[in-house]
């Protein structure tokens, strides 16, 4: 491969791929059984972090940034005046293998602009994955993009070589999609997602009977939504997210704060801030749904359509539901412990284990690592010291904010001054 040509292409095609936030490399269980290269069994590994603090786990590139579509939010859109490039299949294979051998990456995340037709594009993506698996004996992680509109047959083949498949719905509502990407239809995104979901279920069922059944996308499917490009509120976003988790068995939904890349007046203008704090609150909500036993409607509903920015969604929920507190940490079940603000799941497990030996007091809890500045208003333990004043939600919130410093202080005070 010619070094200079590859270098130039890599710059263009990595730059264009970076707005896809997924970097997960876990959950695949692909063993190195053939004495080949790579192993994707354990947890994911972040080999480095960019200066914006995001994990670098996979070689994330587009096969090409030529595209026949003109989606307003996308940097690769047809009408955008940017340099175009396209990798050859072998170039992507060589880069992946050589980066992997040096322990730079866990594998490949290959996406693409859509050139000629969806099937033509999907075929090339599959060809890269196939070559890596069959010719290079590669057992590392491969994440392929499902191209909207690709045929069922190609999606089936993709799942045999890839660990994860994803298709980004990008815009949370159909109305928003119509406005920003008039040539795209929701159904086109859904179709490959449904196909992959059904194949995963079928392969898993067959594997139970015939052990040699090959793996099919063992790390599942994911999708991504852009936040703050098309005016949706948090309630709409999380409803969509919940819908996808429930109906398409997704492993992850990613939320990507919109980075302005265009002067299109349908979108936030270049120079406006990326909504990073909002993105963070959405991820917190996502975690509450998936790991803390919350139903999305407890956190966001008709009466409460946007997440608070100044406090996290669990604290916000607790303040609206003071009748559920205080919780006694020495007797409460896991579900209620997980609902105490300031307690993460790790602390919850430690408490459940430790209280078998003796009753826990404040000192124990502090040492275990509970964030008492938040938790103290919502729990009692083996101590006669606890919050005895009948504080209102407003008052508690005030006390907590007074005694903590948010890493978002700067953003928060800017936002306040807008209204002040």
């Amino acid at each position, binding site marked *: 491969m010619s070094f200079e040509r590859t270098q130039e292409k*890599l710059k263009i095609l990595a730059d264009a791929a970076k707005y896809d936030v997924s970097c997960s490399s876990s959950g695949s269980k692909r063993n*190195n059984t053939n004495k080949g290269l*790579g192993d994707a069994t354990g947890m994911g590994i972040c080999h480095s*972090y960019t200066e914006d*603090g995001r994990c670098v786990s996979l070689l994330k590139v587009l096969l090409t940034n030529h595209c026949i579509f003109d989606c307003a939010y996308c940097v690769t859109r047809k009408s955008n005046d940017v340099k175009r490039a396209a990798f050859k299949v072998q170039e992507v294979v060589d880069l992946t293998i050589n980066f992997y051998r*040096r322990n730079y990456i866990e594998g490949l995340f290959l996406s693409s602009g859509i050139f000629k037709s969806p099937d033509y594009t999907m075929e090339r993506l599959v060809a890269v994955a196939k070559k890596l698996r069959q010719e290079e004996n590669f057992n590392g992680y491969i994440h392929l993009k499902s191209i909207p509109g690709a045929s069922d047959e190609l999606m089936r083949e993709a799942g045999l070589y890839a660990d994860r498949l994803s298709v980004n719905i990008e815009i949370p509502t159909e109305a928003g999609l119509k406005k920003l990407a008039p040539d795209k239809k929701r159904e086109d995104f859904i179709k490959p997602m449904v196909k992959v979901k059904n194949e995963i279920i079928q392969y898993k069922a067959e594997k139970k009977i015939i052990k040699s059944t090959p793996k099919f996308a063992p790390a599942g499917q994911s999708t991504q939504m852009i936040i703050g490009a098309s005016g949706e509120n948090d309630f709409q976003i999380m409803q969509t997210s919940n819908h996808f988790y429930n109906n398409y068995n997704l492993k992850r939904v990613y939320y990507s704060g919109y980075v302005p890349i265009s002067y299109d007046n349908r979108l936030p203008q270049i120079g406006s801030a990326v909504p990073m704090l909002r993105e963070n609150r959405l991820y917190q909500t996502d975690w509450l749904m998936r790991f803390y036993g919350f139903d999305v409607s407890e956190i966001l509903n008709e009466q409460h359509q946007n997440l608070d920015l100044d406090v996290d969604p669990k604290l916000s929920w607790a303040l609206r539901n003071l009748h559920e507190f205080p919780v006694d940490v020495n007797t409460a079940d896991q579900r209620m412990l997980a609902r105490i603000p300031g307690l993460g799941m790790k602390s919850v497990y430690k408490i459940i284990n430790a209280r078998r030996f003796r009753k826990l007091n404040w000192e124990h809890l502090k040492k275990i690592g509970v964030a008492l500045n938040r938790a103290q208003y919502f729990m009692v333990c083996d101590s006669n010291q606890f919050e005895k004043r009948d504080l209102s939600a407003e008052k508690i919130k005030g006390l907590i904010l007074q005694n903590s410093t948010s890493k978002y202080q700067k953003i928060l005070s800017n936002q306040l001054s807008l209204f002040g």
Partner: protein
Amino acid sequence: MQAKNLIYDGTFDGFLSAVFYVFEHKLKTVTIQNEFTVQHRLFLENETIHTDELKANRVWKGIKSRLSSNGSYQLYYAFLSEDSGVEDLLLEYIQYVFSQRKKVDKDYTHPSILKIAQIAKSVGREKHRMEAFVRFRLTKDAIYFASIEPDFNVLPLIEKHFKRRYADQKWVIYDIKRGYGLFYDLNKVELINMDFPENFNFTKTDNAFFAEQEFEFQKLWQDYFKSTNIESRKNMKLHIRHVPKRYWKYLSEKQPN
């Protein structure tokens, strides 16, 4: 009553042999020290412990039967931290474990249990960091070579990971701080000590030692690292929390061009 300062050879078996000695002689006032970092204590009689694999195995078997598998992992991890005084803490932990009838490794309110769990966690974090931050460079002898200086002695913990992953290439991971490394020869992993040439600079990729294509791939990786960054989200505080500066010198993407 005897008061002793037990000095062992720095190995895990050596440490377990010292623990055996403590139980055998029912010592009450005792410290255990590594022979490389020994500090003489007043009123304590020094006793050099002979490493005995059989005794070590007996102690280890006993410990394992009284702990969950996670508990015995934590104990070994904490030992590898090489923290000063960790041996005494481990002894306290082991004595507590043997004094109780039920398994106590999840009793996080007991000071030595919590402390060992915390030390084990930082060793585990360092292990994971090394699995991430090792950067192989291809030498002229077609060996993928990496140098590291981990905070804790994690080479024994990462061997399996790298062996499984890089089954089809020869590699060396060398701990410069502790002066030993792992060498995989396509069949097995061996512990090695190496003599490096006088002018060998660990952070520099010198064309006297490294393959020609090594330079190209490092350059491509550095370019990739730059291209994948989103400038308008820049957050150096977060970046440094994830990749502390002490690790930068062996990271290919952090080398000056």
